[in-house]
């Protein structure tokens, strides 16, 4: 704020160079497209935004350490920083070979039954997420290796698209056999525009779920546990809409992925069987301060949503029409009307052009993870927002689509759609090549 204020003082004093310049490059070539603040933040807000950004970029330190604000990695963790998985706030991908580590994805674990408040029941020894790494003296839990199994799909006109699906093996398990376990692979999504998703009124989502839809599409809301409100509410974040708020999604990721406690999740992620983990030095109580969590939430809530590019190109416009005609837009709704935001008035009342309905849909056996998550069954996934889709590979060359990164292109992702989305997938696969290319060009414009 001080710096900004000084420059503004210079402007007010009529000193040389008192200009307002916006040199933001065109989004189409901007690899920082998912990192810009919304327009119009005040100097105080910009200070919070920048502090949140510094925490998102921060590599966390094993306790005890001299850098108190960023001390407390682990004891069990996956990666050191938020940007390890969300490089430039973008999307991650899956490893190509079994020996490659999961740099931007993780494995959720559970056993049959329900945990507290109806969520998944964590594995009694390994918890709810495989933490591959441990701080010195604490063994990492083990490795998940992916081998890809190929399959092929033939499109109209005879083109064959090679798909792949993951086969997972767990190795180097440090705390004994996993035994019967439900697991689910998760590639990190991009994280711009999340604040606006929080403004879509609950009533809108309920109405959407209850409305009649073509092609046998249904759609359901998830109801999940709000840690702060201590109540069951609608879920809207996470691949199964299993997190109620952006704040809880952030705090959950800090704990699950980096082992950083917060006021929402004040207990380290060690199970009773993990003695070294429980005995490890803590980085503070909590390790991420409430102010830090506030600022990370502010930062993510105020990232500029992905901006469309080339929307007026004829192929893109044609693709947009085909997207609707094929039935894609029934779930990937082009826009939702935002209402009030519980904390940030700046976000209220905007049109949220995220291409999602935030509802759960049965996506068929081929994408099923068999893992229930509150009301979501093992075949249901939340419709992922598509905004920013066309920016992802420019930001991260190893981008994978769908929950587990199996799809290397948007087309592969479409071809994995089944269940409620099967009619739409069939329409896409039946389109002439030129029309399919137009539809893909539209997706690239998002």
């Amino acid at each position, binding site marked *: 704020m*001080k*710096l900004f204020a*000084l*420059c503004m*003082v*210079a402007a007010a004093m009529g*000193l*040389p*160079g008192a*200009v307002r*310049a*916006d*040199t*933001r*490059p*065109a989004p189409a*070539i901007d*690899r*920082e497209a998912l990192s810009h603040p919304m327009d119009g933040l005040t100097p105080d807000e910009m*200070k919070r935004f*920048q*502090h949140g950004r*510094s925490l998102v*970029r921060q*590599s*966390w*330190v*094993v306790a005890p*350490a*001299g*850098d108190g604000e960023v001390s407390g*990695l682990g004891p069990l963790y996956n990666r*050191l920083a938020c*940007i*390890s998985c969300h*490089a*430039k706030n973008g999307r991650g991908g899956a490893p190509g070979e079994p*020996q*490659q*580590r999961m*740099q931007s994805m993780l494995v959720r674990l559970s056993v049959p039954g329900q945990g507290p408040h109806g969520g998944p029941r964590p594995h009694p020894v390994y918890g709810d997420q495989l933490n591959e*790494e441990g701080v010195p003296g604490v063994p990492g839990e083990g490795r998940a290796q992916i081998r890809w*199994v190929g*399959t*092929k*799909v*033939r*499109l*109209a006109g005879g083109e*064959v698209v090679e798909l792949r*699906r993951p086969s*997972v*093996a*767990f*190795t*180097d398990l440090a705390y004994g056999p996993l035994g019967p376990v439900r697991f689910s692979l998760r590639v990190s999504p991009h994280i711009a525009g999340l604040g606006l998703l929080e403004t879509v009124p609950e009533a809108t989502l309920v109405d959407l779920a209850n409305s009649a839809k073509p092609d046998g599409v249904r759609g359901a809301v998830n109801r999940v546990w709000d840690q702060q409100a201590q109540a069951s509410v609608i879920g809207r974040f996470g691949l199964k809409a299993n997190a109620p708020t952006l704040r809880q999604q952030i705090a959950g990721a800090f704990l699950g992925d980096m082992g950083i406690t917060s006021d929402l999740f004040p207990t380290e992620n060690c199970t009773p069987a993990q003695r070294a983990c429980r005995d490890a030095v803590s980085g503070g109580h909590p390790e991420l301060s409430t102010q830090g969590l506030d600022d990370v939430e502010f930062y993510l809530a105020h990232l500029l949503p992905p901006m469309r590019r080339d929307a007026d190109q004829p192929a893109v416009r044609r693709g947009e029409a085909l997207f609707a005609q094929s039935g894609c837009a029934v779930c990937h709704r082009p826009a939702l009307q935002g209402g009030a935001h519980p904390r940030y008035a700046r976000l209220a009342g905007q049109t949220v052009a995220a291409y999602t309905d935030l509802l759960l849909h049965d996506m068929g*056996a*081929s994408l099923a993870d*068999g893992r229930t998550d509150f009301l979501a069954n093992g075949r249901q996934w939340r419709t992922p927002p598509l905004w920013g889709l066309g920016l992802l590979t420019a930001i991260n060359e190893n981008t994978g689509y769908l929950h587990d990164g199996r799809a290397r292109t948007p087309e592969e992702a479409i071809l994995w759609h089944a269940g409620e989305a099967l009619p739409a997938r069939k329409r896409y696969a*039946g389109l002439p090549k030129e029309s399919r290319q137009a539809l893909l060009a539209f997706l690239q414009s998002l």
Partner: protein
Amino acid sequence: MSTGFVTSRRRFLAGMATLATATARAAQPAVRPVVVMTSFQDELVSRFEAAFEKAYPQYRLQVLWRMPHDAAPYLRQPAQGGVDVYWAASPRTFAGLARDGAWRKLPVDRAGLPDRAGNTPLADADGFYTATEMAGFGFAVSPAALSARKLAAPKDWTDLADPQMLGQIALPIPARVGFAPPIVEIVLQAYGWEQGWALWSQIAANAVLVDRGATFVSDEVASGRCAVGVSIDFFVTSAIANGAALQFVYPGHTGVNPAHAAVTSSSPNPQGAKAFVEFLLSQDGQKILTHPDIRRLPVRPTAYEGLPAAYFNPFAAAANGGLQFDGEASRPRVGLSSAVFQQMLVQPHGEIRDLWQRVRAAQSSGKPVAAARKLLETPPLTEAQAADEGLRRQFVNRLEGNLGQQVSAAEAAWQETCAKQRNAARQLLDEVGA
């Protein structure tokens, strides 16, 4: 039109069934950890992690992240905390720990790697550590902002002292921002102690200060809030590579800061440590440094082959007489000079800016203000006093990013001296009606 899976549905479902159960794969050849302590940003570390593990699948990198000031205590633990390799951009930390016997002789072949870039050594004379990459110091400039203000792009430090630059320079605080301490010494070495501090006083008067942990110098310039920013190059050149409408100027007087790697004397995995350092120095490892998100300067000259002409080549610059800054010579004093900068120019920054505006206005109207000007330009101690070993020792641990230091007695004395000089300057200006 009939479309569908080429494989039969039955075969496909059979395949899915195998997915429903995780397999615990039998023992495989052991993958040994290589424990690396570093302070590099994740964009850089993650790329090296992936590439190293691909090249050496028998090893798995375990990264311990620590700022340089926090690394030394960790490495002084029993068995050096199990660390195999220390890898960071902090020459003082490497030199200090070398004196403690922290490193083993570097187990790698430096063939093809020059020993110097300009006046910067790239290899430890005693063979304990080696430079793995470099970063240069200079100016981020916004052509649009300069043009709007009708300012020319600065070519050297003296251009930043131009009164037209008032309010236009984003300047990192040397004692607070990790990369910034050598910047003070670059100017002092280039222009001499007295003229150097005089120049810094004028530049600071034009500057808005950037602290650690929030905004970036490149933010301030890219946004147009400032037209110029003093910076280490990669923050800016990476922003440019990612689309920011900026340029980076290497001034006439500048130098590079080397990052190093060393293998600990207690390394539990010396073979893995050797492999990692060799990978850092290999052609493949050096090429990673040129990624748009990293933009460091390789120490292997062949890594510059095939890069765009605009990519700064420090070896070419040195061959043309550039990069004269001797970072090694400055090392004993760099903590002290940052502390002086803090007391002389940062702590009283508002006063400095206001007094210089009065001096400049008076000069324009022909009033005699040379004595007042001299008072603002004079540091609180002489070069000879700054050479005192005992005094320097007080600041030797003021390493990059080491915040929260108490103000020492020496600093309190400098603060008082500087305050007296400012008061005297103010009185002189009052007397001539400036």
